[in-house]
């Protein structure tokens, strides 16, 4: 008998090497180049660049639109991510049963995830149309007067949040379903034999054992939502009166509409810094406490 692995210190590096080579070439190197661009000013036509040091950042911090985009990004993420995570976990627990018809519900809840984000944004734009959209038709049935939705600065962000939540819940539900599979069925039987209610079982057994899955969903969902801008781009163009302009929309607009690559890169760098702070906090708070 011999334990090969222990005497082979290169093993871990061999496991991670193929992926790291790919990420280094196609992600980390371009990221480095992209972020260094934040210290330059690019001429739109010639593409000539000039070193401006922290000039882009100074301009950024003095721009009121940057600060309102920060606030909108914060608002959007503070609502969407918890909402998606809680709903996805709730649905996963509900459909993770051996009851008739559950596979149908599992499939239906996943449907929004199979429609491309662009198409979903276009369809919801039509749904939110104040004059002939489906949303107001449904409200009319309930006796609610027509709402302006995306054309109102007060409602636009809420409308975008509703759409994004709808689109994402099924996606994250699937990951929770996988996490629930890793919880041995005997735990459930034992807990029920001990007289635990399903609610107690969820809080005392399921949730603690699901912590690693929850960490993944929370962190990944945060990163994805911070970078989301297609729904705003398609449905509101960041308006009305910049009420749905998130930082990522500013990145896009500066890079591809105003051709201000350096400035876009500076916004993106600050966005990355914010995400890293949020994610580090999430990792700290959600550290697994139970080993089994």
């Amino acid at each position, binding site marked *: 008998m011999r334990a090969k692995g222990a005497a082979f210190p290169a093993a871990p590096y061999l496991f991670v090497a193929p992926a790291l080579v790919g990420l280094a070439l*196609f992600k*980390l190197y371009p990221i480095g180049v992209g972020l260094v661009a934040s210290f330059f000013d690019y001429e739109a036509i010639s593409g000539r660049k000039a070193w401006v040091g922290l000039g882009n950042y100074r301009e950024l911090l003095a721009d009121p639109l940057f600060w309102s985009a920060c606030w909108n990004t914060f608002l959007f993420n503070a609502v969407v991510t918890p909402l998606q995570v809680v709903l996805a976990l709730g649905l996963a627990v509900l459909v993770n049963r051996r009851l008739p*018809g559950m596979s149908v519900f599992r499939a*239906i809840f996943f449907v929004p*995830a199979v429609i*491309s984000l662009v198409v979903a944004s276009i*369809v919801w734009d039509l749904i939110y149309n104040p004059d002939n959209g489906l949303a107001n038709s449904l409200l009319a049935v309930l006796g609610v007067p027509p709402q302006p939705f995306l054309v109102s600065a007060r409602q636009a962000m809420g409308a975008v949040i509703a759409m994004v939540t709808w689109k994402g819940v099924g996606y994250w539900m699937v990951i929770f379903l996988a996490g629930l599979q890793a919880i041995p069925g005997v735990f459930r039987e034992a807990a029920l034999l001990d007289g635990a209610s399903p609610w107690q079982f969820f809080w005392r057994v399921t949730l603690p054992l699901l912590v690693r899955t929850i960490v993944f969903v929370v962190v990944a969902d945060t990163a994805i939502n911070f970078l989301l801008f297609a729904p705003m781009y398609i449905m509101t163009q960041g308006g009305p009166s910049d009420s749905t302009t998130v930082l990522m929309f500013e990145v896009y607009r500066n890079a591809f509409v105003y051709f201000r690559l350096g400035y876009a890169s500076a916004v993106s760098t600050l966005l990355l810094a914010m995400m890293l702070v949020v994610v580090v906090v999430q990792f700290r708070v959600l550290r697994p406490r139970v080993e089994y």
Partner: protein
Amino acid sequence: MERRSLPATLALYAGLVSIALLTLLPFLWTLGASFRENAEIFRYTRPLSIWTFVPVRPTLGGFAYIFGEDRFGRFMANSFFVALAVTAAGLFVNSLAGFGFARFRFPGRDPLFAAVLVTFMVPLEIIVIPLYIVVRGFGWIDSYWALIVPAVADAFSIFLLRQFFQELPQELVDAARIDGCGWFGIYWRIALPLVKPALVTAGLLTFIRQWDSFFWPLVATSSPEYTVVQVGLAKYITEFVTFWDRLLAGAVAASVPVLVLYFVLQRYYVQGISTTGLKA
């Protein structure tokens, strides 16, 4: 089957049915609209009636155009091939890395993992120009290689699989080591089969991400032979007019393969197949 009272079961189903209806409404409207003529698409939304969802004069015009005049079948085949290749290669490469990060302590592990996480916190919009230059350096522009290779190594899958590999009991690994199993054997024969639901999930979500990818294929390819499904769809929205019948028919057609895939993989999401619990 679980033992629970009849009212509780009825309440559960009532809740599920109402959430399902809310979830499905936008899709049902899209589905109905994809069988309408362009002029009819917005005519019956108000007031709400059966004709809001069911086409009054059903037509296959949108589908006939995209599969007949246009080459939407080819676009779908391209996306399918690319997504399948990325998923297959990605599952191997990323599960290796996930296992490495989960089951070993080694110098540099945490900084390397942090670097992995950073790669999915920077938008493609910022890295697209340097990425294009790298890919052009390999001579891959306007080929399948450009669509497949850069997407294989993926932080999302590495992170997801790492979380699941961490759940595996250490005793299992120790026992295998004592039996003379090498690290690759432990990964391949013991760890991988035990995280099957996570592998299926990582594969499914990788496939969907590739199926949905738009911006990079738009930049990296130009020939119709390599046009992917989302780029094909975007052609029906022009600066001056949107061909709603074609767009919605394409959207419905594009959702079919992923739905079928999900149905096929669903059996991995049924509680009871798990054998992970060593201690239990």
